[in-house]
């Protein structure tokens, strides 16, 4: 059976760059958008906004806790602040502030964590954010989005600006494979079925979405029909998509560049356990990585289509 859609998966813009460029565009149309950055604007790409709107850009220095507090105060006074740094720093160092000053009153702060996962590469584990999804999802009221490519990132940034409430959006360092040809059709709490399939479902966020497509192409050649769903909205989760996957395909693999404990997999499992139990397998990280090129690290730490494929075979064996 031919695949429902063909994906070339060409290398596109890094999601962090899509974030930075979208933010600068937003600045032109929305005067309430302001940006805070912690001495990483050339890396998080908020420098595009800083150059265009210097009066709305707050350089906070290497002080993430204060940056989150500044953003909260700006939000309380009616601004739409985007606070950005490496995910490892803004989420971990700013966590207590995100909890008490942002989540608890439910302020309209948009946190964008870049250089997430292990694909930051050579800088090593101190800069790698592998717990950010777990931490952000633990904050009541936060929406947590992890888009896979440039257009979906652009859509998520615009959604965050247009939706009142706290957001965490995860971006990556390397060039992201192009999946979408339009920024339409994204929603907070949504998901995107990228390939139709009946035998099992592969769910992912971020760069693992493309790996799932590659795995599905291999499975298709073997006569196995894999559904692929981009679960870019980790919280709120598209529960209906999860229930349909469980009921219609009877087996689910969740793949993510994050700790397997506490990530998308755990959230999907919760829905599956409540609504329609079925075999599940997980492709995720189990601990801290090391320095290396992004490709070397993704190979060594099991973030490839081959790892998704192995999990798919395992879950299919359990299903039958």
């Amino acid at each position, binding site marked *: 059976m031919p695949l429902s859609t063909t994906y070339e998966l060409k290398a596109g813009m890094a999601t962090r760059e899509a974030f930075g460029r979208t933010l600068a565009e937003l600045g032109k149309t929305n005067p309430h958008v302001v940006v805070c950055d912690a001495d990483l604007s050339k890396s998080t790409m908020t420098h595009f906004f800083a150059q265009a709107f210097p009066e709305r850009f707050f350089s906070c220095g290497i002080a993430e806790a204060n940056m989150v507090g500044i953003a909260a105060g700006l939000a309380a*006074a009616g601004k739409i602040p985007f606070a950005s740094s490496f995910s490892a720093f803004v989420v971990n160092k700013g966590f207590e502030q995100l909890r008490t000053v942002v989540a608890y009153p439910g302020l309209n702060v948009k946190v964008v964590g870049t250089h997430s996962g292990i694909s930051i590469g050579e800088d090593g584990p101190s800069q790698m954010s592998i717990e950010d999804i777990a931490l952000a999802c633990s904050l009541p009221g936060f929406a947590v989005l992890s888009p896979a490519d440039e257009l979906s990132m652009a859509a998520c940034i615009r959604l965050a600006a247009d939706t009142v409430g706290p957001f965490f959006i995860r971006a990556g360092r390397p060039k992201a494979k192009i999946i979408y040809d339009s920024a339409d059709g994204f929603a907070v709490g949504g998901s995107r079925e990228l390939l139709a399939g009946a035998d099992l479902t592969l769910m992912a966020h971020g760069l693992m979405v493309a790996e799932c497509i590659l795995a599905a192409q291999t499975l298709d050649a073997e006569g196995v029909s894999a559904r692929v769903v981009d679960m870019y909205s980790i919280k709120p989760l598209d529960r209906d998509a999860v229930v349909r996957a469980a009921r219609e395909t009877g087996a689910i693999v969740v793949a993510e560049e994050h700790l397997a404990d506490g990530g998308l997999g755990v959230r999907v499992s919760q829905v599956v356990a409540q609504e329609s139990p079925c075999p599940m397998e997980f492709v995720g990280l189990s601990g801290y990585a090391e320095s290396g090129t992004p490709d070397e690290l993704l190979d060594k730490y099991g973030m490839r289509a081959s790892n998704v494929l192995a999990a798919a075979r395992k879950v299919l064996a359990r299903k039958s």
Partner: protein
Amino acid sequence: MKKTSNVAELEAIAKQVRRDIVTMITAAKSGHPGGSLSAVEILVTLYFDKFQHDPSNPDWAHRDHFILSKGHAAPVLYSVLAECGYTPKDQLNHLRRLGSLYQGHPDVRFIPMLDASTGSLGQGLSFALGMGAAAKLDGRSSRIYCVLGDGEIQEGQIWEAAMFGAFHNVTNVVPIVDYNRIQLDGFVKDILDIEPLAAKWESFGYYPLEVDGHDIAALQAAFDDAAARTDKPTCIIAHTVKGKGVSFMEDNPKYHGSAPTAEELEKALAELA
């Protein structure tokens, strides 16, 4: 509410606020009397004199804002808000009860005009500076006052915030250190000394103003001085007495965080008559 610059009238309000504080904490059977009593004149001088606000219109875009970063001193704030007419005075003794407006620490979910939920120390100045930066962007005249505990400024985030406030010259935000010299475990100088305090703020780019935090006329002058200064932000260091106004609580670390007994309340109210 009636605003006044008359020191005797402000002192009379301060006395009533102190009576409210000890009464509500006794009713709650827990709370922080010492650091509430030390900040009374600071809040009374602001809310009843220097503050631009209208309790009948808390959404006024140009109003001033107050962030109690040392959130455990909530009773002084609650008493002042109630005296101003923002919140019901007859519920002050519901402090810390389930469902009460008067939560253990200030909570915007219960009292929206508070702007910030505080209680986790070290965070209020950053929030205040964000509000101040927004007011500057909008060209609003709002000023934001932020009361910090002396022990609280052991938190590193305060100094991150101070660097930000000076660097971005956020002169519409005034941090006020309630320097009552006592924190939970004892005297600040014995826990982790914060001296030289004025020199610290000065080296961080602030203009430090040291005042007697119980001298209303001195506080009025300090707030005016801070408002007039545009070259750099001002930090008011208010030298205060923990437990001020109740003899057996004054300068006594025990009353940082323990409620008076019924007998102690009687004695306290007699002193505050």
